[in-house]
């Protein structure tokens, strides 16, 4: 079992890091609904380096989309409310700049692809018209110039025959095609940051591979940063430089992708990785499971939010278990550049 943590390994996380493009600090977002106050995101901090891909992963409902929507300042208010925190972008705080400035910035500097692509296009207008309007709103230009820009971008994202595609209505196109169009639309303005919320979850694996490849190519060409939301650990492994693991409105762990898969520090991360059917294993061998279900976000537990389901606690003595259930673990620095919110992080080589 893990020995008491060496004090010299711990330092407070300094969020004011150079060349960090996006810096989220102690963000709290809640929804005031009939059943009570739902604490969707409950004090998270992380930052993102320019030109990299950061993956945001975690169970359904853990607050991934709410985090992304907060960056765009698109949380519906009411019932949503950003309770506190800051979102530093370049030298601005996105939560306090005037709304007009935020609207100006949206699409130009930060663009987002939404979880349900079909619902983000208007069914009664052709794809071409919607792209033109989106482009025109940000960069007024002559019609034929705009059209050429759109055509080039559609070709770039792998749409063959763009001339006829732009005359289509959204329902006439496949999911893969729509997703390409959404990416093309987001890229028209060459944003510095692309937020992609589950961009491939609804797609088939062969189309998913194409889209992920496309995003990687784009990044190489433009040094755009990508915030990629997914719950697929395979997608994370193949596309991300860094990973933030969320659980019940909190960050459990942040790490570079290699260290995360080799040596997860948080038992929740370990559980996520272990639950995937391993290659070559058959059903003779039961899969690893994380027992139980996620805690209520109306009344989150006071200690570690994962403690109830944590497999590790069984091997801890009573005193340590009390700590898990009663003391809220801070996100702290470990192994140089990794962050973990666990009183008793896992030792190396647990994945073997």
């Amino acid at each position, binding site marked *: 079992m893990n020995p008491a943590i060496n004090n010299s390994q711990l330092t407070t996380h300094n969020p004011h890091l150079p060349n960090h493009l996006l810096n989220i600090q102690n963000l709290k977002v809640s929804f005031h609904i009939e059943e009570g106050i739902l604490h969707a995101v409950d004090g998270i901090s992380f930052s993102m380096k320019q030109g990299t891909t950061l993956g945001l992963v975690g169970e359904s409902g853990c607050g991934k989309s709410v985090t992304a929507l907060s960056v765009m300042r698109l949380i519906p208010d009411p019932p949503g409310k950003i309770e506190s925190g800051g979102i530093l972008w370049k030298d601005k705080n996105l939560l306090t700049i005037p709304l007009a400035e935020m609207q100006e910035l949206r699409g130009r500097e930060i663009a987002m692809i939404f979880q349900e692509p079909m619902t983000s296009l208007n069914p009664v207008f052709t794809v071409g018209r919607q792209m033109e309007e989106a482009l025109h709103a940000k960069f007024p230009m002559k019609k034929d110039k705009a059209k050429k820009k759109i055509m080039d971008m559609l070709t770039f994202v792998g749409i063959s025959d763009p001339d006829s595609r732009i005359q289509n209505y959204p329902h006439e196109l496949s999911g893969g095609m729509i997703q390409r169009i959404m990416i093309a639309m987001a890229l028209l303005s060459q944003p510095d940051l692309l937020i992609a919320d589950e961009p491939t979850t609804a797609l088939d*694996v062969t*189309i998913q591979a194409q889209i992920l490849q496309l995003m990687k190519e784009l990044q190489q060409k433009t040094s755009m940063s990508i915030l990629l939301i997914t719950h697929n650990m*395979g997608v994370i*492994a193949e596309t991300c430089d860094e990973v933030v693991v969320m659980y019940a409105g909190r960050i459990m762990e942040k790490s570079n992708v290699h260290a995360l898969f080799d040596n997860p520090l948080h038992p929740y991360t370990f*559980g996520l990785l272990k639950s995937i059917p391993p*290659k070559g294993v058959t059903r003779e061998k039961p899969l690893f499971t994380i027992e139980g*279900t996620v805690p209520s976000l109306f009344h989150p537990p006071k200690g570690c939010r994962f403690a109830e389901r944590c497999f590790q606690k069984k091997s801890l003595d009573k005193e340590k278990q009390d700590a898990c259930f009663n003391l809220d673990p801070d996100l702290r620095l470990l192994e140089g550049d990794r962050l973990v919110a666990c009183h008793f992080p896992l030792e190396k080589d647990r994945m073997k």
Partner: protein
Amino acid sequence: MKDALDPENGKFILRVNSLVKHYPLRGGILSRKIGYVKAVQDVSLDIREGETLGLVGESGCGKSTLARTMILLEKPTSGNILFEGKDIASLSSKELFQVRRKIQMIFQDPYSSLNPRMTIGEIIRDPLIVHKTGSRKEQEEKVASLLIRVGLSPDMMDRYPHEFSGGQRQRIGIARALALDPQILIADEPVSSLDVSVQSQALNLLTELQKDMELTYLFISHDLSVVEYISDRIAVMYLGRIVEMGDTKEIFENPAHPYTRALMEAVPVPDPKRGGRKIILKGEPPSAIHPPSGCAFHPRCPFVIPECRKQLPLLEPFSPRNTSSHLVACIRK
């Protein structure tokens, strides 16, 4: 009629021969028939007693239609379906009703497949009422034991679906499917909407149930790692046809069809050390209204030769060595 005991393959429980399902496509103001969606085209396969047959392929390739037609939730356009050696496509509706209880289905979406206005107890008991099985008391006892069987508690009986998590709702769906003691369970993407941590619980449960209740599974999924884990054999479908079929281990070690290979190659691997992909399939599956000539995969196939456009490949043994177990439909194999 053939004997249910096929010496080569062991005992099969469900067999389809040359199954075809076309949906008429209507259009224009008079909504005239303007063509057909060729959802299932000439599929022959058998499901052996006690096995799990995995059915994989991309969305729209006909997996669900094949399953639904196999159990006559859809009327086949042609072909026959043998359940325990009897052709069920020609049964009267009364006889079919009796067969149905032996073949049950669980669905992808644990949210929409449960009636929100019925309690959990009513939902699970419903098939027992429809099939007039047991007294009220016996039915209630059955419901309680089923809830325990799927890892829930009998005191949840009076609660409603919205009070449960996705994983719990999937268990409720499984309990309902087991109410009539079926022999075959058709699971259509049963774990696709679940988070990985809940998915592994559901897969373990399905495996346990299969062992304890001697169930046969047809497991439909687009997730190859799940199918590899759960299945004894795999059938790969592309545009309404089976393009490859065989033992799971054999298919994963020696995939013979270029589509199967591309599909495996496309699955994101949870290992950041693994290098880039070899084959990225271009384009998207073509329409099932106007399938390409010859091999339907030829427009996307990296190994296409002119012959592929002309000739429809038959599903044949991959190599002369293993005559029956590994089948593939590709002239370039």
